[in-house]
C-alpha cells in the first residue's frame, strides 16, 4: 500500500506540480483506501471511480502541458448535499435516493475548474439535520478514532473520511456547527466562512439565512488552499457577496504579536467537560507564547443561541423542504388516490424522523397566531446575540473557546432526546446566527479522543482566522495526529 495519504492537501498539490507522482496514482491509492474502510466507517454514499480516473488523466495531461489549475489532480470528496451533474445527489435522504442532479453546484464547478478530482459523495445527516450522523438514510458513520462513537454531524462522512485519510480534503456545510463540530470530534480542521462568502447555489437548502459551505481538511493551510478556489461572488446566489477574494494562502504567515484574543466567558461554564476545558486553556497559553494578548469577553446573550436556532432553523427548513412534493423530483408514493394523498404520503415516506420533526416545528412556529410569539421573538433575540458579537469585536480581533462541550460520544447515546442532541451545538450556533467565519482546530486529547479549539472572527476576516489557526498549527502538532487505524493500515 502506498503512503501518499500521509501528505497534506497542500503537499499533494505541490507534489503533483513537481511531477513526483501522477494524479492517476494518487486517485488509485485513495480509492483503494476508501474501499478498504467503507465497511468500517461508512463515510461515503457514492464513490465515483470511473469519473475520478478520467478526471485524473485529464489533470495529468494539464500538469504536463503546464495549463493546470491550483488544485490540479488533487483528490477531494463532496458532501452529498452539493449537486453534482450526472451523479446521484441524495442529501442523506430516502427522498432523494433516485435524484441525479442535472447541474453542478457552484462549489463543485469551481473546484473542478481548479483541477480538483472528485472521488465521491460523503455521508451526512439527512438534509444536514443532525449532530451525530445518525439520521442518514444510508446508515450511521463511525468515528475513525473509535468506531463505537459518532463522528459528529451533519458533515460526519466528510470529517471521518478526512480523519481516516481516505481523502485529503472534503467540502462540507455548516448551518449550526455541521463543519466545526465533526471536525472537533474527528481531530481535523473544519472551516466555516462568513455567510455569503461561498455560493449556496446547488447546495441543497436547509436554513437559508444560516447555511454556508466550507472545508474539512487536515490543516488550516489546506483549508486556505481550498477556500481560495471555492469563495467568490456568484450571480446564481442572491445572498452571495460581491467582494474580492483575498489570497488566503499568502495571508497565512502573519505574526501574532499584539493579536487581541478574547476568551468567550460564557463558554467556560459548567456544561463544559473539565478535561476539554483543560485542553482549551493549554491552547490559550500557546497563543500567549506567540505574543497574543488574552482578555475575557462576555457575550451575555450567547447562551440563548440554541433556543433561537431551534425556532429559526426549523422555520426556514419547513419552507425550503416544501419543494419536495413527489411531483417534479424525489420520492413518490405508490398509487396515490388524489393529489393531497400524493403530497402527504410521498413526504411521509421520503423524510426521516428528525426531518419531519423539524418541518413540523417550523410549520408550527410560522403558523397563524404563533409567528410573533416564536419566529419574530427568536429573530429579535438573534439581533441581541449579533450585537454582542459586534461589541466584542470592537475590543478583540478574534474570540476563542471550545468547539464542543465534550469529545465524541457513543452511537445511540443521544438519539432518544432531541434537545440533548441539539445542545451539542451550544458553542457553534452563535457564529451561524451572526454569519461569522469560524474554524475548529485540534488542540489535544481527552481519553485518546480529539478535542477542538474554536476561533471566531468578524465578518470577512477569513484570512485572519485562518492565519490564527495556522500559527497554532505551526506551534503544535495535534493536527498531524491520525487515528490508530490509519497507522495500523487497518
Amino acid at each position: 500500500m502506498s503512503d501518499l495519504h500521509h501528505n497534506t492537501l497542500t503537499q499533494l498539490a505541490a507534489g503533483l506540480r513537481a511531477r513526483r507522482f501522477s494524479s492517476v496514482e494518487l486517485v488509485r491509492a485513495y480509492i483503494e483506501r476508501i474501499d478498504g474502510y467503507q465497511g468500517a466507517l461508512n463515510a461515503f454514499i457514492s464513490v465515483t471511480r470511473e469519473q475520478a480516473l478520467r478526471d485524473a488523466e485529464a489533470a495529468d495531461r494539464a500538469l504536463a502541458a503546464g495549463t493546470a489549475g491550483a488544485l490540479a489532480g488533487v483528490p477531494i470528496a463532496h458532501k452529498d448535499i452539493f449537486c453534482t451533474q450526472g451523479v446521484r445527489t441524495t442529501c442523506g435522504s430516502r427522498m432523494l435516493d433516485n435524484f441525479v442532479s442535472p447541474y453542478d453546484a457552484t462549489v463543485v464547478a469551481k473546484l473542478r475548474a481548479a483541477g480538483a478530482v472528485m472521488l465521491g459523495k460523503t455521508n451526512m445527516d439527512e438534509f444536514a439535520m443532525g449532530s451525530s450522523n445518525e439520521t442518514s438514510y444510508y446508515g450511521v458513520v463511525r468515528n475513525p478514532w473509535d468506531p463505537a462513537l459518532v463522528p459528529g454531524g451533519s458533515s460526519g462522512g466528510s470529517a471521518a473520511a478526512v480523519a481516516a485519510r481516505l481523502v485529503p480534503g472534503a467540502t462540507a456545510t455548516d448551518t449550526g456547527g455541521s463543519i466545526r463540530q465533526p471536525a472537533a470530534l474527528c481531530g481535523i480542521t473544519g472551516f466555516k466562512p462568513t455567510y455569503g462568502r461561498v455560493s449556496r447555489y446547488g447546495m441543497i437548502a436547509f436554513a437559508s439565512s444560516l447555511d454556508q459551505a466550507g472545508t474539512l481538511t487536515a490543516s488550516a493551510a489546506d483549508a486556505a488552499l481550498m477556500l481560495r478556489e471555492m469563495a467568490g461572488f456568484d450571480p446564481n446566489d442572491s445572498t452571495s457577496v460581491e467582494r474580492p477574494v483575498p489570497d488566503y494562502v499568502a495571508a497565512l504567515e502573519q505574526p501574532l504579536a499584539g493579536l487581541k484574543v478574547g476568551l468567550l466567558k460564557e463558554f467556560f461554564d459548567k456544561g463544559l467537560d473539565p478535561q476539554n476545558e483543560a485542553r482549551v486553556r493549554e491552547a490559550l497559553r500557546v497563543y500567549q507564547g506567540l505574543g497574543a494578548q488574552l482578555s475575557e469577553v462576555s457575550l451575555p446573550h450567547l447562551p440563548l443561541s440554541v433556543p433561537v436556532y431551534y425556532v429559526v432553523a426549523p422555520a426556514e427548513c419547513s419552507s425550503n423542504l416544501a419543494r419536495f412534493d413527489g411531483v417534479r423530483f424525489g420520492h413518490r408514493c405508490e398509487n396515490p388516490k388524489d393529489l393531497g394523498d400524493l403530497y402527504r404520503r410521498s413526504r411521509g415516506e421520503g423524510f426521516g424522523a428528525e426531518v419531519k420533526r423539524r418541518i413540523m416545528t417550523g410549520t408550527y412556529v410560522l403558523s397563524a397566531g404563533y409567528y410573533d410569539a416564536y419566529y419574530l421573538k427568536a429573530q429579535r433575540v438573534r439581533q441581541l446575540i449579533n450585537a454582542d458579537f459586534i461589541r466584542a469585536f470592537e475590543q478583540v480581533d478574534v474570540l476563542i473557546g471550545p468547539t464542543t462541550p465534550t469529545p465524541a460520544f457513543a452511537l445511540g447515546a443521544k438519539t432518544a432526546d432531541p434537545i440533548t442532541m441539539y445542545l451539542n451545538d451550544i458553542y457553534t450556533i452563535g457564529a451561524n446566527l451572526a454569519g461569522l467565519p469560524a474554524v475548529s482546530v485540534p488542540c489535544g486529547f481527552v481519553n485518546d479522543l480529539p478535542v477542538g479549539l474554536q476561533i471566531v472572527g468578524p465578518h470577512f476576516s477569513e484570512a485572519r482566522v485562518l492565519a490564527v489557526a495556522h500559527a497554532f498549527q505551526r506551534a503544535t502538532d495535534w493536527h498531524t495526529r491520525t487515528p490508530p487505524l490509519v497507522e495500523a493500515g487497518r
Partner: protein
Amino acid sequence: MYDFALVFSVLHTHCEAPMALTREQIASIAVLARLDLTSSEIPVYQHSLSSILDFVGTLDAIDTASVVPMAHPLPGLSQRLRPDVVTETDRHEEYQQNAAQVAAGLYLVPKVIE
C-alpha cells in the same frame, strides 16, 4: 445575565412537565406540513415538539420590545436585481428525467378536477 446553566435548568424543569400539545394539534400541524404520520408517530412528536416549544420558550423571559428582528446575518445587504433578459435555455427534458411520471413534457399527478 443569562448563562448556559439557566438554559439547562429551564430545560430540565420543563422536561418534567412539558407544555403538552394534543394529538389533534399534532395531526393538524401534519396536515399543514403535508406529512402523512402513522398513529404510532403522533405520540412521539407530541412529546418532542412539546419539549422543543418549552425549550424555546426560554426566550420569553428576554425583553426585546425595542429590538428590530434580524432576518439576515449581513445587515444592509439589499436584494440584488438583474437585467430582465433571458439567460436560461430550455432543458425541461433533462429536468424531467428526475420526475416519477411525465407525458408530453407535462408532469402527471392524480386527477384534480372530475
